[in-house]
């Protein structure tokens, strides 16, 4: 599989006679087949042979990497066009079998190849694993070995012929290396000299950084895998004033059991919403207390969106809200609390409602609808007609009974999760940001040789061709 591919770290056109374009000249000579030996060892050898001679070069092939990048991009688009994670009925009504979209995209096809959950299908994950394998192989088989070549300081060129192959080269009569050195140093080159030979370079970080880019992506991948194996997600909808334990786990990795908190619970002291003067939502707040086994408070914090609570590796996020109950009184009754349920409003905002009896035998009553926690509810009579509105702390006469609204009780929707992979992922993020920026630097190399009384100079760079040409020409102009 002798693909002649040049990688980031390899000079595509090396002026040297040395085998620079393959820092690993055939590192694995063919293994002679064992004359004798068990069948098993022969299979093992065959496998190793296949791995080293066939599989690894294929995985390290840059064209495979490009194909994988584009394939992941292509398949990712599917999940943004086709709705993800909907019910069977949804796909049946939106993607009917006849007439099928584009003649083939019926709900059966969608469910068969998993287009309702693209990012969790076996084929998408296989693509990601293949990508990870390619990334790993490239990093260790190509980048790191090539780095060794560039970190040498003795890449001198000894014959004028070698200068002919340069993109930029020049020859000067009656010039010495000493006239070149200050020019190079002024431009921040590191200069190495031996007798009549000169090698100078700058921006080596532009060669090292891409290796770190790849390594930090591997770090993120590992962190993501650890997170998905040992982390969990839970959601709880808790009315103001109640205590809960984390129970409603909807997504957990196979080894997540240890992360789910068992020896502590959380008390919701209060949930409220701040509204802007125009009636829009300003912010959601939950005042939470963490309680230990004995019910003693060990931590307290008011969370809001963008400001979660963390305790023992578990994080609680403000994620949602609802109206849990309504507290009312009828005539002189004590305060009654009735639960409120969310009503299907047909997609036009969220509404909660309950039914309040106005006769002791429950033969008559009114419906009460609320849309937010601002303290106003709408009353509907038996016939479904609006019978008026009711404000918190006020009363209204319904069916001959005085109905007083004491309070609307909100519940806070908390997203709860633990992800032990986060430190690795964040470390990968940090390294990736740093190294991807450093990868902008162009590694420029300049060679010099004095033969007779003629100075030969040549140079190349791996990224900034235009800027490098200007720099070289400016130096040449000064040498004249």
């Amino acid at each position, binding site marked *: 599989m002798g693909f*002649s591919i*040049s990688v980031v770290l390899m000079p595509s056109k090396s002026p040297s006679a040395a085998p620079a374009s393959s820092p690993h000249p055939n590192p694995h000579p063919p293994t002679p087949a064992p004359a004798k030996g068990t069948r098993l060892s022969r299979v093992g050898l065959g496998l190793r042979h296949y791995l080293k001679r066939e599989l690894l070069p294929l995985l390290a092939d840059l064209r495979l990497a*490009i194909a994988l*990048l584009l394939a992941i991009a292509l398949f990712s688009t599917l*999940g*943004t066009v086709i709705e993800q994670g909907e019910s069977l009925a949804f796909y049946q009504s939106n993607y009917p079998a006849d007439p099928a979209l584009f003649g083939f995209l019926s709900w059966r096809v969608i469910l068969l190849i998993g287009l309702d959950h693209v990012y969790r299908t076996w084929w998408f994950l296989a693509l990601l694993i293949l990508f990870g394998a390619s990334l790993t192989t490239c990093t260790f088989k190509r980048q790191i070995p090539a780095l060794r070549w560039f970190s040498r300081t003795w890449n001198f060129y000894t014959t004028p012929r070698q200068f002919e*192959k340069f993109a930029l080269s020049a020859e000067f009569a009656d010039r010495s290396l000493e006239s070149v050195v200050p020019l190079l140093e002024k431009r921040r080159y590191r200069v190495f000299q031996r007798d009549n030979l000169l090698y100078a370079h700058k921006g080596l970080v532009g060669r090292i950084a891409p290796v770190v880019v790849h390594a930090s992506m591997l770090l993120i991948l590992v962190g993501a895998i650890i997170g998905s194996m040992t982390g969990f997600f839970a959601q709880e909808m808790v009315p103001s004033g109640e205590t809960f334990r984390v129970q409603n786990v909807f997504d957990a990795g196979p080894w997540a059991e240890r992360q789910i908190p068992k020896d502590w619970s959380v008390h919701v002291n209060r949930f409220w919403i701040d509204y802007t003067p125009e009636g829009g939502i300003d912010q959601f707040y939950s005042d939470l207390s963490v309680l230990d086994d004995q019910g003693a408070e060990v931590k307290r914090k008011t969370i809001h969106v963008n400001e979660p609570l963390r305790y023992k590796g578990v994080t609680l996020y403000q994620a949602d809200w609802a109206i849990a109950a309504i507290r009312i009184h009828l005539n002189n009754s004590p305060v009654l609390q009735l639960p409120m349920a969310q009503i299907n409003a047909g997609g036009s905002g969220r509404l909660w409602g309950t039914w309040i009896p106005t006769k002791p035998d429950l033969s008559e009553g009114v419906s009460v609808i609320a849309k937010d926690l601002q303290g106003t509810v709408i009353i509907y009579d038996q016939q479904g007609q609006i019978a008026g509105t009711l404000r918190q702390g006020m009363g209204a006469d319904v069916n001959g009974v005085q109905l007083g609204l004491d309070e609307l009780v909100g519940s806070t929707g908390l997203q709860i999760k633990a992800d032990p992979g986060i430190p690795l992922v964040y470390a990968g993020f940090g390294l990736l940001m740093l190294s991807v920026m450093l990868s902008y630097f162009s590694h420029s190399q300049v060679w010099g040789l004095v033969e007779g009384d003629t100075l030969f100079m040549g140079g190349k760079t791996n990224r900034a061709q235009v800027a490098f040409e200007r720099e070289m020409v400016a130096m040449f102009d000064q040498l004249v």
Partner: protein
Amino acid sequence: MDLVTLQGWLDNASFGVLFATMLVYWGCVAFPTAPYVQTVGSTGMAIANLSIAALLGARWIDAGYFPLSNLYESLFFIAWGITAVHFIAESMSRSRLVGAFTAPTAMAITAFAALSLPDAMQHAEPLVPALKSNWLMMHVSVMLLSYACLMVGALLAIAFLIVTWGQTVELRGSSVGTGAYRDAKYRLRRNGAAVTLPVAPASLAPSGGTAVLPTTAPSVTASSTSGAVTLSPQRLTLADTLDNISYRIIGLGFPLLTVGIIAGAVWANEAWGSYWSWDPKETWALITWLVFAAYLHARITKGWQGRRPALLAASGFAVVWICYLGVNLLGKGLHSYGWFL
């Protein structure tokens, strides 16, 4: 004059200036010998850049937060970014072609924002709870700057494709010497073996035996090029320059995109506990990242230099637009700015 009137005046002014600048740059390409035209174009671009900056500054003072909360503001920010990146690309390449592509793009964006976006969408709205975070400025501004860079880079790739239309391109190695000749006093070659220069005008050929070494030349280069060498330094061709500047600008946009995506991921993890949730906008940012990563790798794949990576980069222009605007048309996900979480 109050801030709102000033804003209304500035957004129309920046559109007008960019429109004029576009015409100037096009004239500049049509009549390459006309003097001062490029200076006029650059000045127009600078005025547009400053008036958009003033517009965003006025809105910042007006609303009290960094103005990146709705489509109108982000369109103007991206137009500002394109005019800013234009200057980087122009000074790197010293080519007037850059403005011929960036000016119409920036003009179209300001036209859309100032003229066709309904008034209701132009007003600064209070931030929804999910966006009330310092991460907003960090994440959104870096993302938009990266879009601006990637768009300019992709535009230059398109320019490269147009300039090299119908030619077989072999970059860096080959040389068709259309660059300026200078009064050379030394010998400079580009890939010795492949030099096939058009014959330099006699008047420009160096005069005899200055400091050069025509006498020593044959002994050194007798190999293959003795007949074809020139005594003039040979510059990168226009195609070479466009290709490399496109690469450098994309090389600037790619780290920005990476940082922007990571900032978004960290913000998402801090705000609602998941750094990656395959939200459509997130996914398209990843797709953009993958396409440009493929471009960067295609460039270093042997035998793929030239048009093939440029085609990838040019298609990246469409991908960036889908990521920036197209996804919002789906109206789903965290980035529709309408709903809480």
